[in-house]
C-alpha cells in the first residue's frame, strides 16, 4: 500500500519536474551591465508573470556563427537572441532567423498605435525586433586635452591640437565614415563616396595621418579601460560604456557626442524552433518589447528605447538616481549632429572594405 | 705488501672527513695510502661511504675536511676533468647517442688528439677488451657484459694511471661476473695501472684485490690482503662481514704466552688467540671459522679444550657438508666439513664434542 503511494508520488513529482523543465528558455545576450539591465527590466518580471525560467547565455558576439553552426547541425538550442541590427539582417539573409510581423506579433503602443509605426524606421529587417538605440561615439580625458576641449569629431584627426593616443575600433565601419566627414565630405555624400575605390582610398589616407597614434580596440570594454588608465586621450566606444566610466566610476572623462553613429540592437528568434518553443519565444518578445518594458531598461543603462512611445516614460537611474533622459544618445542636446549606420551599404561592402582595411593596417 | 712510507703512496687520503648535510659525518677520519700499481678494493655494507670516497677522489664531491693527494700533490682544488682519473660507473654511463667508437674517442677528442692517433688508440682499446667488431654500434645494441667491457675500455683508452670502478659488475649474472673479474684484474696487472675498486660482494673483493679495505660506518675497519683479512680479522665486524663465522661470547680469564683463556657465558672454558683483548676480566667475542672447527678428536691436540655440542641440522651441499650445532647456548653454530670418502655424516640429535686450534679462535672486541 505504502509502496504504491510512494511510487505514485514519485511519478507525480517526475511529471511535474518534466513540466517545469519544459518551461525554460535560453536567451542570448552580450553579458555584463547590458545583460543585467535586461535581467532587471525584462527577465525578472517575465518570469514572475509566467513562471518560465530564463537561462542566460552571453554569446551574442559570436551569435551569427554559432546559429549557423547550430542550424547546420539541426539542433538550435537558443530561443531568443540579442544581436545588433547588421547581424540580424545577415541572419535573416541566411534564413537563420524567423520573420516577424510587427503589427500582429508585437504589442501596440498604449495609445493603440500599431507597433510598426511605433518602431518606425528602426524595423530595418524583417526578422529584427529593435530594442535599443545605441551610439558609437567618442569620450575624451578632460585632463589631457588642454584648455579647449574638443567639440567636433574631427579632433580625432587633429594631432596638432590634441596630441596623444586615441583608440579606434579595429574595423572599417564608422572609422571610414568619420575619416571622410573630416576630410570634407558632406554627410549625405559619405556612402556614395565610400562606394568607390577612390573614396575608400581617401578614407584610408585620412586615417593614415593618425595611424601611428591609434590604439586599436576589439572589445567594447577596451576604450573605457584605456581612458581610465590614461593610455589614450580620446577613444570611440558605445555610449553606455562611457556613461559608466563617467557617472559610475567618476573618471575625468567627458562625452563627445558629435557625429555619433546610431545603431540598433534588438531581438531575433532563430528559425527552425519547434512550434511550442516558437510560441514561447514570441510571447516573451511581445512582453519584453512593449512600451513600458523598453522604458524600464533605460533605468539601468543609458541606451535609448527603440519605441517612440517609450521616450516620455524614461525615468531616473535605478541606483544613481540621476535623470537618464539627458544621457540618452537620442536626447536633442546630444543628437545635434548624428549619423545613421547604413546597413545596406555595409552588408554589401563590409568584406571588401574590411580586406582593404586590414591590408592597410598591416602595412 | 702494506706500505709504511706514506711518501711513496700514489693515492693518499689524509684525515679525510665528509658530511653531506652538515649534521652527520658519512666519512669519518679516513686515512688510506695506495701505492702505484695496486688493486685496492673498498668493501663494506650499503651506506658505509664507499662511493663517497670514490667520488671525492674523482672530484665529484669535495672533502669536508682533510687532504686527498695524488702522486704527492693535493688535488682538493683540481676540477674532475683535470685529474686524469679513469672511471667505470655502475651503470657504465656509456653515452647513448654515440657509437662505441665515438664513446671511446671522446676522451681523446677532448684532449685534442689527432684523428689518426685517435682511431689507432680506439682500435687498440677495443681489441684489448675483445670488442673490436662492435665499434659502429650504439650502447643499446650491446649486451650487459659487452657494455661493461666498453666502459672499461673507455676508462682506459686515454691511459690514466689511476682507474676507479664503482661496482662495475653489479648488474651482471654470476658467470659473466666471474669472467669479468678475471679479465679486469688481468688487464689491470698487465697495464700496471692503479685501481680503486668498490664492491659489496666479498668474494669479488677477495678474488680480485691486492688489498681490501673494509668499510663500516664511515671508517676503514681493516685494510689487508685478502688472506689476512679472512684469516686474521682484527675486529668482530670484519670477522662477521668477511666469510662465514661463528661467534661465542665470554670473559677473558687470563692471558699468557700469546694465549687467552676465555670463559664463555655458558661456563665452558676455551683457548683463543688474543687480538683485541689485553687483560683478564674484559668481555670478548670469539670468532671461529666453520671450516676450522674439528669434531674428529684424533685430529686435535690432546690438551685442547673441548665443547659439547648437539647436532641440529645436517645440510648436504655437494662439495661440503654444512652442519648446524647447538654449542654453549648458540644454536647457530656452523661447521663445514669436506665431502671425502671417509667423512662422517652427522645425524640431527647426535651429541658430539668439538674443538679447534687455539690460533684459529680469535678473541675480538665484544
Amino acid at each position, binding site marked *: 500500500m505504502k509502496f504504491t503511494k510512494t511510487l505514485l508520488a514519485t511519478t507525480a513529482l517526475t511529471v511535474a519536474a518534466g513540466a517545469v523543465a519544459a518551461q525554460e528558455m535560453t536567451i542570448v545576450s552580450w553579458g555584463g551591465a547590458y545583460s543585467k539591465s535586461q535581467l532587471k527590466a525584462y527577465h525578472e518580471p517575465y518570469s514572475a508573470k509566467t513562471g518560465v525560467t530564463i537561462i542566460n547565455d552571453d554569446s551574442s558576439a559570436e551569435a551569427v556563427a554559432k546559429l549557423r553552426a547550430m542550424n547546420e547541425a539541426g539542433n538550435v538550442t537558443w530561443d531568443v537572441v540579442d544581436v545588433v541590427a547588421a547581424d540580424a539582417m545577415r541572419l535573416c*539573409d541566411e534564413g537563420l532567423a524567423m520573420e516577424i510581423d510587427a503589427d500582429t506579433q508585437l504589442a501596440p503602443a498604449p495609445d493603440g498605435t500599431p507597433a510598426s509605426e511605433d518602431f518606425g524606421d528602426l524595423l530595418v529587417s524583417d526578422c529584427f525586433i529593435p530594442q535599443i538605440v545605441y551610439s558609437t561615439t567618442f569620450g575624451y580625458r578632460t585632463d589631457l586635452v588642454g584648455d579647449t576641449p574638443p567639440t567636433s569629431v574631427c579632433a580625432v584627426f587633429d594631432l596638432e591640437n590634441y596630441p596623444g593616443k586615441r583608440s579606434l575600433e579595429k574595423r572599417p565601419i564608422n572609422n571610414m565614415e568619420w575619416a571622410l566627414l573630416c576630410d570634407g565630405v558632406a554627410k549625405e555624400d559619405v556612402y556614395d563616396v565610400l562606394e568607390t575605390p577612390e573614396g575608400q582610398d581617401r578614407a584610408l589616407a585620412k586615417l593614415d595621418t593618425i595611424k601611428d597614434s591609434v590604439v586599436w580596440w576589439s572589445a567594447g570594454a577596451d576604450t573605457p579601460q584605456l581612458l581610465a588608465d590614461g593610455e589614450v586621450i580620446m577613444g570611440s566606444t558605445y555610449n553606455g560604456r562611457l556613461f559608466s566610466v563617467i557617472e559610475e566610476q567618476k573618471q575625468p572623462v567627458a562625452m563627445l557626442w558629435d557625429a555619433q553613429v546610431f545603431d540598433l540592437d534588438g531581438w531575433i528568434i532563430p528559425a527552425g524552433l519547434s512550434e511550442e518553443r516558437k510560441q514561447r519565444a514570441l510571447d516573451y518578445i511581445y512582453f519584453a518589447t512593449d512600451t513600458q518594458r523598453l522604458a524600464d531598461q533605460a533605468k539601468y543603462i543609458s541606451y535609448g528605447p527603440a519605441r517612440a512611445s517609450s521616450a516620455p516614460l524614461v525615468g531616473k537611474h535605478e541606483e544613481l538616481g540621476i535623470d537618464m533622459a539627458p544621457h540618452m544618445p537620442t536626447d536633442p542636446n546630444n543628437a545635434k549632429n548624428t549619423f545613421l549606420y547604413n546597413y545596406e551599404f555595409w552588408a554589401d561592402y563590409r568584406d571588401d572594405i574590411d580586406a582593404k582595411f586590414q591590408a592597410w593596417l598591416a602595412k | 705488501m702494506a706500505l709504511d712510507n706514506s711518501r711513496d703512496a700514489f693515492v693518499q687520503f689524509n684525515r679525510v672527513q665528509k658530511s653531506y648535510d652538515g649534521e652527520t659525518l658519512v666519512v669519518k677520519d679516513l686515512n688510506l695510502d695506495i701505492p702505484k700499481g695496486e688493486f685496492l678494493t673498498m668493501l663494506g655494507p650499503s651506506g658505509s661511504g664507499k662511493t663517497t670516497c670514490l667520488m671525492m677522489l674523482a672530484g665529484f664531491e669535495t672533502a669536508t675536511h682533510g687532504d686527498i693527494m695524488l702522486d704527492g700533490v693535493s688535488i682538493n682544488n683540481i676540477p674532475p676533468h683535470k685529474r686524469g682519473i679513469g672511471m667505470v660507473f655502475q651503470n657504465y654511463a656509456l653515452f647513448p647517442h654515440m657509437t662505441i667508437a665515438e664513446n671511446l674517442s*671522446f676522451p681523446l677528442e677532448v684532449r685534442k688528439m689527432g684523428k689518426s692517433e685517435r682511431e689507432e688508440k680506439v682500435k687498440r682499446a677495443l681489441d684489448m677488451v675483445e670488442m673490436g667488431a662492435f665499434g659502429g654500434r650504439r650502447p643499446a645494441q650491446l649486451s650487459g657484459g659487452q657494455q661493461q667491457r666498453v666502459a672499461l675500455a673507455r676508462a682506459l683508452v686515454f691511459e690514466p694511471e689511476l682507474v676507479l670502478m664503482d661496482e662495475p659488475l653489479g648488474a651482471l649474472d654470476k658467470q659473466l661476473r666471474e669472467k669479468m673479474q678475471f679479465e679486469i684484474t688481468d688487464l689491470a696487472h698487465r697495464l700496471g695501472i692503479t685501481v680503486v675498486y668498490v664492491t659489496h660482494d666479498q668474494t669479488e673483493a677477495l678474488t680480485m684485490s691486492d688489498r681490501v679495505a673494509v668499510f663500516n660506518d664511515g671508517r676503514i675497519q681493516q685494510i689487508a690482503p685478502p688472506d689476512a683479512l679472512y684469516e686474521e680479522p682484527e675486529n668482530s665486524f670484519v670477522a662477521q662481514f668477511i666469510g662465514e663465522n661463528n661467534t661465542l661470547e665470554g670473559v677473558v680469564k687470563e692471558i699468557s704466552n700469546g694465549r687467552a683463556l676465555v670463559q664463555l657465558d655458558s661456563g665452558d672454558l676455551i683457548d683463543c688467540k688474543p687480538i683485541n683483548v689485553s687483560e683478564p676480566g674484559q668481555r670478548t667475542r670469539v670468532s671461529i671459522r666453520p671450516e676450522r672447527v674439528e669434531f674428529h678428536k684424533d685430529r686435535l691436540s690432546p690438551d685442547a679444550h673441548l665443547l659439547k655440542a648437539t647436532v641440529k641440522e645436517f645440510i648436504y651441499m655437494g662439495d661440503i657438508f654444512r652442519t648446524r650445532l647447538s654449542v654453549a647456548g648458540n644454536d647457530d653454530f656452523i661447521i663445514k666439513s669436506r665431502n671425502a670418502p671417509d667423512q662422517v655424516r652427522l645425524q640431527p640429535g647426535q651429541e658430539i664434542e668439538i674443538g679447534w686450534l687455539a690460533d684459529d679462535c680469535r678473541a675480538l672486541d665484544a
Partner: protein
Amino acid sequence: MTDQTAGQDMIAADGMPLKKSLAKSLQREKMRALMLIAPLLIFVLITFIFPIGSMLFRSVENSIVQDTLPKTVVALQDWDELSGELPDEAVFTAFVEDFIIAVENKEHTRIGSRLNYEVSGMSSLFRKSARKVKKWDPVQDAPFRDKLIDVDKDWGDPATWSIIKTHSVKYTNGYFLNAIDMQRTAEGAQAQPEDKQILIKLFIRTVKMSLIITGMCILLGYPVAWILANLPNRSANMLMILVLLPFWTSLLVRTSAWKVMLQNQGVINDTLVWLGLVSNDARLEIINNQFGTITAMTHILLPFMILPMYSVMQTIPPSYLRAAKSLGATNWTAFWRVYFPQSIPGIGAGSILVFILAIGYYITPEIVGGTDGVFISNRIAYHISSSLNWGLAAALGAILLAVVLVLYWAYDKIVGIDNVKLG
C-alpha cells in the same frame, strides 16, 4: 634452396603450417589490441578526423549556385563571358524562373551573400531584386531582359553574369585562390588588387613569429627545465608549481595582465621612468606590436616547452655528465657533447607543441598584437564569426594545416621524428 623448403615445411603442433599459425595468433592479438583502443579511435574519428575532413570539404564545396539557380547555370554555358556582351533572353528567362523559386524558398539572400564575397553589391542586388521579381509570373511576364535591367541596372552589366558563371562550379578553387590573395575570374586565376593583399603576408608573419616564439621558449625554458631536473624533489615541486601557475588562470586574464604590464602607463614603463632609464615622454612601445605578441605568447606557451624538456632531462642520469668529466671534458664540453644531445628529444617535443599551438593562436595576438602582431588565425576567426565566409576560413585553415605538416616533414628530415620524446 633446401633452407627455404625447410622453412616452408615448418609445422606447428596442431598440424597447421607454422607461419599461418603465427599469423593467426598475431591476428587475434591485434584484434584484442584494436578492441582496447576502439573507444579512442572512435573519439579521434569524431572529434578530429571528421571535423578536419569536413573543413577540407568545405574549402572547395560550392554547390549553392548550381542548387539555387540550376536553369541559369545551364543556360549560361552557351554564353561567352569574355565577349563583353550581355547573355541572351534565354538566360534571363531561366534566371527569373530560378529566382522566383529561390525567393519562395528564401534562398535568394544566401546566394547573394555567397556572391558578395566575390564582388561587393551582390548581396543588396539580390535582396532588392527579390521584392520586385517575386511578383512576376514566369510565363506571362516574359520577356525579362529589360524588366530585370529596369529593376537594377547591374543586371545589364555583363560582369554580374560573369560572376555567376565563374562561381557556378560545384567544386571551386576560388576559396583557395582567395586564401593566397588571388581570385577566380572569367579569365582564370588572377592576383587580388594590391590594396587587398594581406593573407600571404599574414601567413609568413604567423610562421615567422611562431618560430621566434618557439625559439624564445627554448632559450628561456631550457635553463628552467634543467634546474627543475637537477633540484632535489621538494624544491623541484615548488618550482614546478610556479611554472604551472599560469595554467591556473584563464588565458584572457593572463593576456590582460600583460596589457597592464606592458602598456604605455604600465608597470614596466612606470618602473623605467621612475628609475630614470627612459624619460616620461619617450615611454617604450612594448605593446600593440610584435614585441607584445611575442612576449605574451612566450609566457603563455613556456610551460608547454618546459614540461617535455623537464621530463626528458629527468631521465638523463647525472652519471653521464660525471662520466664525461672523468674522461677529461670541461663543464661546457660535457654539457654540449653529452647532455645536450640527449635532451634534444625534449626540445623537439616542446618545439613541436609550442609551434603548433602558437601558429593557431588568436586571442593573445588580438589583444596585445596591435596591427603588426596579429596572426592568420585572427583572419580565420574573422571569417568564421564575422563575415561568415566559412569556405575561405576553411581554405585558410587547410593551408595552415599544410604548413604545419610541411614543417613537421622538414623536422622529420632534419632531426628525425623518432627523436621526439615526452619523457
